[in-house]
């Protein structure tokens, strides 16, 4: 069976898709043929067996999900795939520790420029944060009004993010955000890059 170089990218949200696109984009041997924003992790979990099967047929899948408050990645994999089961070699189920926002915070310069804050105010080890999204929003709260309003939910709302959260952050990921720089402070990002590099080698 020939392994396709066409990658299916699935993530919880648009920010996840933007990060995934950068990851795959590093490898010229790979191409993304389809991006699916599942709107949360529930649907990803439901479809995980299908993604695994696709990868088994020779069509690689990169799935990005957040670890959130789970104790460790193994715990998430056991819960999604079944106790002790490993995903197919070409099903890259990569977990952001603890959230995609940690990867974004791992290269703080573009965010600092957007928020008009000093880089020193950003966390140096974002993967150790319990809630990276809350940290990002806390920093965004000090940003100029236009950015603040776009990123933060309205006062009193039970929403977790503002209406233009993804619209503001996704272009940042596609543009100034440096994946090399970020992976120095985000080990889970570094691991994801290695697995994708290995996939590219298998394909070519």
């Amino acid at each position, binding site marked *: 069976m020939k392994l396709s170089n066409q990658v299916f990218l699935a993530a919880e949200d648009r920010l996840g898709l933007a990060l995934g696109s950068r990851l795959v984009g590093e490898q010229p041997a790979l191409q993304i*043929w389809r991006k699916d924003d599942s709107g949360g992790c529930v649907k990803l979990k439901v479809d995980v067996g299908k993604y695994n099967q696709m990868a088994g*047929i020779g069509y690689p899948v990169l799935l990005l999900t957040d670890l959130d408050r789970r104790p460790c990645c193994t715990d998430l994999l056991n819960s999604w795939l079944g106790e002790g089961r490993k995903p197919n070699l070409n099903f890259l189920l990569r977990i952001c520790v603890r959230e995609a926002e940690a990867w974004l915070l791992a290269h703080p310069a573009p965010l600092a420029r957007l928020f008009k804050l000093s880089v020193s105010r950003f966390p140096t080890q974002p993967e150790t944060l319990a809630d990276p999204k809350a940290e990002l929003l806390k920093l965004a709260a000090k940003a100029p009004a236009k950015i603040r309003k776009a990123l933060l939910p309205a006062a009193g709302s039970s929403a977790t993010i503002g209406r233009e959260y993804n*619209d503001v952050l996704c272009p940042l990921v596609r543009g100034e955000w440096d994946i090399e720089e970020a992976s120095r402070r985000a080990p889970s990002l570094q691991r994801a890059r290695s697995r994708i590099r290995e996939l590219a080698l298998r394909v070519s």
Partner: protein
Amino acid sequence: MKIVKLSLKNWRNFKQLEEVPLQERSYVIGANAVGKSNFLDALRFLRDVAAPAGTKPEAGGLQEAIKRREGLAKLRCLNAQKETEVKIEVTVQDGGDVWCYTLGFKGEGKGNNRNVITRESVSKNGNRLLECQRPDAADGTDPDRLTTTYLENPNANKAFRPLAHYFAAITYLHLVPQLLKHADELGGNRLQRDPFGQGFLLRIAETSSRTRDARLRRIQRALDQVVPQFKQLSFEQDPTNGSPHLKANFSHWRESGAWQRESQFSDGTLRLIGLLWSLMEGDSLLLLEEPELSLNLEIVRRLPQLIHLVLKGGKYPDRQVILTTHSEPLLSDLSLGTESIIRLVSTGNGTVIAPANEKEKIMLKSGFSVGQALLPAVGPAGLEQLALAGV
């Protein structure tokens, strides 16, 4: 009878569609403005041509059907350049027989630029019916004849009358609940064949009471599952002015519940009643426009099954239904295969059919539904730019 193939030339968005296979249940999908409704409209056009002549707004015939679509210029594909003929061709399965009907027409190119037939032909089981191959010798001596089709003319369609009746009975439904709820305020101006369900109550009223009660009972049984508080759906005529109404009892804390008329039903309930009634009404081809509108996700998910069960339990279980949809849940039923999906994609040269590609077939093989595999590919690209541009 059912339409098994449709070919279009220069019809609205479609410059050329060759023999699109249609199933007993076909689902037309595609991005906004790609031509889903125009695809259905080709079949509605045949119905309008074949409809019996009569007084407006029900009058049939080629000229009326073109006029109703604001003339040939609005109807012809914008990508049609040199080739001006508009052509519709359908293959119809009728038990063991296969009919093929072709109709081509264009502007005459002189005088009042009348709409004239360029060709009309009928074949049965591969044999051309010689009495209907146009233009014929008589057309040559009298060009005025080319302004009407044999299909619309009972004196000329005897050899293929069953086909003419079949076309004339095609039903289209895009029930707009507000038109029904506010019928009194909006007045009585109704479109031909009532596509938006304004006259839905009249249709119910005109049905014999026995059939009507039986259908309403079946609708009630289906609604029991989805709107459990909705009981005793029945028909009544207003005692003062005779106007037709549906009424139902909404159970609540009072023992007797509350009686409500259709103007108080929810939009979703009304659309569902309209859909169920139409399914039970006749055995002609039924065209449905986005039946998922106003319905909650779980009902939408079960619509294909609901359509199947209602037809299976009725007189015409094999009735053909073609519907347009944007809904992934509606297409999440794993019993739907790619053969039942007609995916339309816009290109620089008109809209074309995009069958499932190799990778999408792998998705289906891996257990994804046709909705998951085929729908997202039709989504609009670059919605993000809207926010950035400050729309």
